[in-house]
């Protein structure tokens, strides 16, 4: 039996900082969590604030934390004890939130990573989107901004679609023009948004099929907070006859941070 310790996982994303405070033992428990938009600030500083805030809220000092683990772009964090690569953490976090998952898909602001794992969360294989933003969360942010929708409302809006219109090309910038065109043709906002979701979901489903993903699939990352996105992925999975069960969890956006906190605890025991 390993003694109980506190671990902290910080996932420095490109648009959001996610942090998890965990009580780590043989049965780890999430104590508290914190999320903050970076919004053109220095992510390192924002992350520091988030960490401090999390500690303060829980009446803890930095020295009470046995292992502070970073992931994502978190290599720059001064106070980290160790850093883990995103796919390693998302896999772990994805399985923690969705026990039994054999594939984890991290849908973030810039990249989508589809990770195939075994029962223990070990990464077996993965596919990742590259240098093109056509399948990214940033794409949704841009379009929703143009349509004057808050990112929080995007999912619900998309669910109201009746006849979705997908943009013609793959490029998100050119798609923007398409969207503008749709607005002028009187296509409703839900139908436009749904179309965008479908075009992104299409990329994700392609990743899944080229990875030969195994069911169940856990969706994580910021876009997993978007019910419209999850719906779109489900629809396309059905359409392409991939026999995949899609799962998600309200805390999905924290998957990377959770994974980091878990790996932190694991390493702590191993090192001590």
């Amino acid at each position: 039996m390993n003694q109980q310790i506190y671990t902290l996982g910080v996932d420095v994303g490109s648009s959001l900082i996610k942090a998890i405070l965990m009580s780590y033992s043989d049965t780890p428990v999430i104590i508290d969590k914190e999320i903050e938009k970076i919004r053109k600030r220095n992510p390192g500083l924002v992350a520091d604030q988030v960490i401090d805030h999390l500690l303060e809220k829980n009446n803890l000092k930095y020295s009470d934390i046995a292992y502070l683990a970073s992931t994502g772009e978190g290599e720059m964090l001064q106070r980290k004890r160790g850093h883990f690569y995103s796919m390693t953490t998302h896999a772990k976090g994805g399985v923690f939130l969705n026990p039994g998952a054999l594939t984890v898909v991290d849908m973030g602001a810039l990249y989508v990573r589809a990770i195939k794992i075994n029962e223990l969360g070990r990464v077996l294989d993965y596919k990742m989107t590259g240098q093109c933003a056509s399948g990214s969360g940033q794409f949704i942010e841009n379009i929703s901004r143009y349509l004057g929708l808050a990112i929080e409302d995007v999912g619900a809006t998309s669910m109201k679609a009746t006849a979705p219109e997908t943009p013609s090309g793959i490029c998100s910038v050119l798609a923007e023009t398409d969207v503008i065109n749709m607005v002028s043709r009187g296509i409703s906002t839900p139908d436009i948004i749904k179309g965008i979701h479908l075009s992104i979901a299409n990329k994700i489903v392609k990743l899944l099929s080229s990875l030969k993903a195994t069911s169940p699939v856990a969706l994580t990352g910021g876009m997993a907070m978007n019910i419209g996105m999850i719906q779109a992925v489900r629809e396309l999975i059905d359409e392409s006859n991939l026999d995949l069960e899609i799962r998600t969890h309200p805390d999905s956006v924290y998957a990377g941070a959770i994974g980091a906190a878990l790996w932190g605890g694991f390493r702590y025991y191993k090192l001590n």
Partner: protein
Amino acid sequence: MKKYFLGIDLGSTTSKAIIIDDNDRIIGRGITNTRANYTVATEIARLEAIYNARFSLLKMKLEDEIEHKPEYKRYIKDVESVFQYLQFKRRLDRLNVQFRDTIEETFRDEKKEKISGFVDRIVREIGPVILDEYLNGNLGQKNQFFRDIVSEKYNKEVNALPGAFFESMMLVYDKSITHVENELTEYDFRELVHQSMELLNEKYAFMDDFTPDETGVGFDSEMNLLKGNYKQIYDSLKGHITFIANLDIHITNMVGTGYGRALLPFPEKSIRSEILCHAFGAHAVFPGTRTVLDIGGQDTKAIQADSHGLVTSFYMNDRCAAGCGRYLGYIADEFNISLNELGPLAVEATNEVNICSTCTVFAAAEIRELLNVGQKRSDILAGLHRAIVMRAMSLLARSGGVRNEFTFTGGVARNQAVLKYVSELVLQNYGKDIKINVHTDSIFMGALGGAMFARRS
């Protein structure tokens, strides 16, 4: 009756209109960044061009007098600025109404009150600031769009507010601006121009209080002449202005081009490919042109033309909008500065950061990353601009290289840093003797080519 010809270039990010007379002289320019509806965009650009044409005709009419009386020139310029302000003001008022509606729709109770209060304050503060910039600064000449002018000021104000309201305030803006931007607001030229003259009278009257040397460094002889006898100038120009305002500007023929040309309500024979138009326009302005580079909002074209201005080969990017004008737009957004400040900042750089991804959407993320590792703003900007130019150089190469003379067109040609790198690389790689042309109207070259085709068919 005089014959005029209209060229419309429906670009991917801006729509441009040019009016020429039957000597191929440009007499009117109109531009808008409205994108939602091509019909509206065409109308806005066309109307703008006609307003602009009236002022041009006025200047042409008074050409002889202006030569002797520089203060006339100055006066007309001022009228034009104020005229632009009045146009701006109407739209701002309209925006304010839209703000109300949006707030009403979006927020409840206390939050609604708070947001409403902030927005009120912002709108109240923006109006006079902008009036001042039009009247006394040179905002009129900067060729900025309504959205850019407002958002620059709005953002500045929002950043001064408590952080918790940031999202909501931005939401109000995003939700409202699109509506207003995409509305066609018609103005009565006569009414607006007379209003402008009244406003000017106030300005000059107020200025009487200063003595000439108090203007210091910027001592302005025209202004000096104006100040003293604006009443008399007003009286003698009023007639001319009324005449011009009543003039019927008859468009004999028009040609449409650009990305959205297929959607123009024109017959098919009045539609030309933008590649031909850009080359033809550039060739008209610089008859020695053999190679044209056009960097627009979403596409970049490299065109080779012969001695008649006819295209012999061309190459353009499609499918991927990396490294085009929109890219600069995202960058400006990210840095919270306006488009025309980008170039000057980049030129100051001492170093060029190596930029790896020119994906327009990723630009912002890459910038943030670079800022975080301590790179200087100007160095990052320099790198970004260079990346754009590298892509353009590759397209140029594909179209057949650069031949003498080389003309750079499109909106991005207004950007000094891009121009600097283009010049450097062209001279380095294609010979020091290449003559590089850039026209102040570079963004209008496609529309100009269209107008010239209209005159010829």
